[in-house]
């Protein structure tokens, strides 16, 4: 075999396609050839880098929907979404600060004008100027009949995606009116629209996670699960929390994955995959195997199923 083809042995080794002679030859080369050793090291790292992760199922489904969707409905790139995430809350904060200053000054005329503006906004069919957004510091009581949040563009599942990827926070009526709740201000003269708290919490947590602040994001996911356990965001929040815990505390991650799997729904495939990975890490091999078998049986077409079948057949998790 010529020198350049030695590295072919490395490629075949990583697919477990070597015959015994080739295995022996590769073992020798790994001791003597830096090129072969370097390539073996490199491919191992690349494989680790590109392994399947919980949430990949939904990520790929989102991408597929965007690629196959109409061009006008295509989502803007993440950079534009991130910019929107920063500018929109800043604009709302500015408006609310100005309005708050006016109210504090006790300007009855200001209140009167604002009420007129708000009532005019409510009667117009076209989206009007944004209504005043109450500061997030205060959490007023939601209306007695809160509107259900608008279903996000998750393709084939009832639950919203784990990562909204910078969707605008639902703080401005007219753009995400269905995701807000209306309350009557104590004075009765100023209508305020409060965003759906679970959606807002979820969006904030995702933004923190994208910024690399995993621990802070995990805290918000936990808050969401404690306060809004039956919200549409609870499932994706639990999945995101489990993913964060996976490297740090696999035993706790396993608890979250099992809770997610038992609730069923669109995230059960990810949950079963997470169970197999985290159970293996804590030494519960039987549980890991059971999760893989359930995954293959219940979701045979899932991207996870392919890897699960390979692991089951090789007896290696």
């Amino acid at each position, binding site marked *: 075999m010529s020198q350049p083809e030695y590295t072919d042995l490395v490629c075949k080794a990583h697919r477990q396609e070597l015959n015994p002679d080739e295995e022996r030859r590769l073992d020798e080369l790994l001791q003597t050839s830096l*090129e072969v050793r370097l390539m073996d090291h490199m491919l191992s790292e690349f494989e680790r880098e590109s392994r399947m992760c919980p949430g990949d199922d939904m990520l790929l489904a989102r991408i597929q929907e965007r690629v196959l969707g109409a061009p006008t409905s295509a989502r803007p790139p993440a950079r534009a979404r991130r910019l929107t995430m920063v500018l929109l809350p800043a604009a709302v904060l500015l408006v609310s600060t100005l309005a708050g200053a006016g109210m504090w000054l006790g300007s009855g005329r200001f209140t009167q004008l604002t009420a007129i503006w708000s009532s005019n906004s409510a009667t117009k069919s076209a989206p009007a100027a944004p209504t005043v957004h109450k500061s997030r510091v205060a959490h007023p009581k939601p209306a007695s009949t809160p509107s259900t949040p608008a279903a996000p563009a998750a393709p084939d599942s009832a639950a919203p995606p784990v990562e909204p990827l910078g969707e605008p926070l639902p703080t401005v009526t007219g753009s995400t009116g269905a995701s807000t709740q209306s309350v009557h201000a104590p004075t009765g003269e100023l209508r305020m629209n409060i965003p759906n708290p679970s959606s807002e919490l979820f969006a904030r947590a995702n933004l923190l996670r994208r910024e690399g602040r995993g621990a802070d994001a995990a805290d918000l996911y936990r808050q969401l699960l404690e306060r809004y356990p039956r919200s549409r965001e609870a499932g994706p929040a639990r999945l995101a929390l489990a993913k964060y815990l996976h490297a740090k505390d696999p035993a706790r991650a396993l608890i979250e994955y099992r809770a997610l799997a038992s609730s069923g729904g669109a995230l059960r495939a990810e949950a079963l995959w997470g169970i197999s990975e985290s159970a293996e890490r804590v030494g519960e091999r039987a549980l890991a195997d059971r999760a893989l078998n359930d995954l293959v049986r219940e979701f045979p077409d899932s991207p996870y199923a392919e890897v699960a079948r390979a692991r089951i057949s090789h007896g290696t998790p």
Partner: protein
Amino acid sequence: MLRLVRVPGTNAPIRSVAEDELWPLAQAAIEGNVVALRTLLTAVSPNILRVVRRVIGASHPDVEDVTQECAVEFVNALRRFRGESSVQHFASRVALRAAMNARRRQRAAKRGTPGPEPIEADETAGNHSPPDAIAASRASMQLARELCDELPAPQAEALALHCVLGYTMSEVASICGAPLETVRSRLRAAKSALMARALADPRLRELVEETA
């Protein structure tokens, strides 16, 4: 002429192009069958995601956007596909080119020579390896990526297909539609550059010294 192809990253057995189960789907998609296109995308998109993660890194914030870009390129390129390789190999090549272009654009936008790729805090927490071991393990990936950015396009493509995606030389030749000797020549040059950098990189000293 039948060609035997394999798909790295899967345990799929050897298939001839004529037996490529995605080929009929690809044909139907090319003819405008939307259902076939959707099924085809479902089949190839995990592979596209794997390629993107290997090229730009799994923790890169633009993985989803670049993967979407690659998927769009694949759909656009499908009309030119004539079964020269398997559909998965075709998807790999299209995704590789699109991902490498995206990486080059991002590097150009940064306007400077980037330093070593930062180690994510999440990688160290809970990882029992010391930071310098983690840095060493990432150094080889960073070397390959940097060379793919700098080498001439044919050499970079051959290096990426062989050392990043794990295709054998004959598969690289099939994917690129080039003679095997041409691919060998390209890889020889690319791997020489890779070796020179590895020998000069202090993060890989231990790997170098362990080799007899």
